[in-house]
């Protein structure tokens, strides 16, 4: 019993800085993947490659298949045809547990769990790294503490998650994904429901973590301006196809606004930093 209750992390917090770092960043390869639900094709032979350590944003309208593509990339969904691989390993042949050691996926929203503390939630990210019975493993708690520290939520470790604000909760959920200690991080609209300040905070945080931990990041973002500003490369999806991809400078154009987002608009430059800024004018009539 004492093994279950005793909390070894208290004794080992000091060594959190020595926690294992993920090895060299991994490449994520989505190769001609198709997927659909009965009566509806969601993705049609989509190919997308994220290089090791690259920060890629996935943009497009609601329902264009972004979230589905992310789930396929995480191995939570299996493609009907085509192949998803991480560092060459086929995700379709990988068990759920094994896949979660390679790819962490942060969903848009998570239901509230009454009474669950920040530490208890973040520790759930260690599930895949543990033995079959879920017993604690050496190093587990260091990784948990480090994940909380990396996103700056360690001071609230023993507070209930429900008691936090939206921005704080989002950081806790980011810590949960980081606790998986994977080389690939997939984020599904991590800035939803956040105000401007917290949107900036979360994206800056992801950028910083990407640099520090050498993460490969694929992120779905609704805000094209933020995507253009933070991502190295944009991939625009439309009706289950890749409509455009490349660095923000070359991808964000009035043509992209028209074809991918269905709006008439102009694209300017940030006067100081030079990144593209969109000025949407009006929605186009859908064909």
């Amino acid at each position, binding site marked *: *019993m004492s093994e*279950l*209750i*005793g*909390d070894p*992390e*208290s*004794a080992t*917090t*000091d060594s*959190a800085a020595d926690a294992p770092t993920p090895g060299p960043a991994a490449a994520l390869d989505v190769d001609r993947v198709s997927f659909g639900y009965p009566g509806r094709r969601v993705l049609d032979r989509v190919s997308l490659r994220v290089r090791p350590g690259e920060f890629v944003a996935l943009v497009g309208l609601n329902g264009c298949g972004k979230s589905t593509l992310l789930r396929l990339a*995480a191995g*939570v969904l299996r493609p009907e045809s085509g192949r998803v691989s991480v560092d060459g390993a086929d995700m379709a042949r990988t068990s*759920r*547990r*094994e*896949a*979660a*050691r390679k790819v*962490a*996926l*942060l*969903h848009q929203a*998570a*239901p509230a*769990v*009454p*009474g*669950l*503390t920040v530490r*208890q*939630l973040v520790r*759930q*990210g260690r*599930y*895949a790294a*543990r033995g079959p*019975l*879920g017993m604690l493993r050496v190093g587990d708690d260091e990784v948990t*503490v480090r994940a909380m*520290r990396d*996103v*700056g*939520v*360690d*001071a*609230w*470790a*023993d507070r209930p998650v429900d008691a936090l604000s939206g921005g704080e909760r989002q950081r806790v959920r980011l810590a*949960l*994904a980081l606790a*998986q200690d994977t080389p690939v991080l997939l984020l599904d609209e991590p800035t939803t429901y956040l105000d401007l300040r917290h949107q900036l*905070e979360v994206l*800056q*945080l992801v950028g*910083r973590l990407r640099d520090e931990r050498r993460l490969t990041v694929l992120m779905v973002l609704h805000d094209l301006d933020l995507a253009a500003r933070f991502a190295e490369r944009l991939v625009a999806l439309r009706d289950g196809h890749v409509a455009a991809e490349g660095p923000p400078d070359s991808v964000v154009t009035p043509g992209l606004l028209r074809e991918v987002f269905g709006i008439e608009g102009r694209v300017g430059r940030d006067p100081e930093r030079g990144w593209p800024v969109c000025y949407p004018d009006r929605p186009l009539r859908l064909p």
Partner: protein
Amino acid sequence: MTLTERAPTAAPEPERSTPRWRRPVLVLGALLLAVPLAAMLDLVAGRALSIGETWQALTGGAADSTAHHLVWQVRLPRVLVALGAGAALGLAGLILQAALRNPLAAPEVTGVTPGAVLGAVAATGAGLADWASPAAVMLAAVGGGLGGAGLLWLLTGRRHADPAGIAVHGVLVSAALGGLTAVTLLAAPGEIGSVVQWMVGTTEARTWQHWTLLWPWALGWGVLACLTAGPLMLLRCGEDVAEAAGLAPARARGLALLCAVALTAGAVASVGALGFIGLVVPHAALALFGADLRVALPGAALAGAVAVCGADAAAQLMSRAVNAWGAEQLSVPVGAVTTFVGAGVLLVVARRHAVEP
């Protein structure tokens, strides 16, 4: 201002983490002490013997053979069965609430308890089992409980991942099975008195045979249930989080529900359809131990044992009082106590939840 400046980065001091586990451990210790206390109370609560006589019989002192028989053959098995059934029901309730992500999920409303009742009643009605032979009744109840849960499983079809769907179908299945039990009783009235007592939940006339049937079953499934604490905790966090963290939710949920069904069926088979224990005890366990199911699951088992045993003691004391008023033959079944107290506690829980956003 950058994030790093604003974010609290102070390392938590090692001392701070001590109270974090001290509280659950203290509560667990207190509950461990409460178990023998409740058992002792239950042991001396019966009407025929005084406390002194009970103690003498228990310690093998100079007691007459009737007292010895009463304590060793009637009261002790009754107390043990109450403890075991309570532990099983508390555990089953917490598993159901966590796996279905529903604070109102309980054995009573997931088809398990009504199925077990129907199984036992139908078996006795058909003459396949007899109230004097616990083994056959227990077998029928376990079969019925599994059948009720299986029916729910079939009805929810491909929507096993949807907790709300399971809850709604569970209420429907439970109502239908309850109706079938009533029909069976009308068709084959037989020993309607003992059946009705059992449907309310009773610890009267439990024998060592009940105990020998109950404890290995409850212990085995209980240990298995506690070992699934990790996956259960992920299930409680939601399908998406569980899957992303590396759990195959369908399989984990199936195993957890199997544990809950087996535990419930075992408990119902030995004490009948004790109301509200599986619904209320999990709330108490989560409030006492926090959301860490590695502690809360064994905690729920202990809390359930204390609750049922305490309720049984209360029921016996009430029977004494009722007898003193003149109703000689009347005895209050423990199920009546758990239902009344449980309903009250649930009312408080519901109100507290309603106030929270």
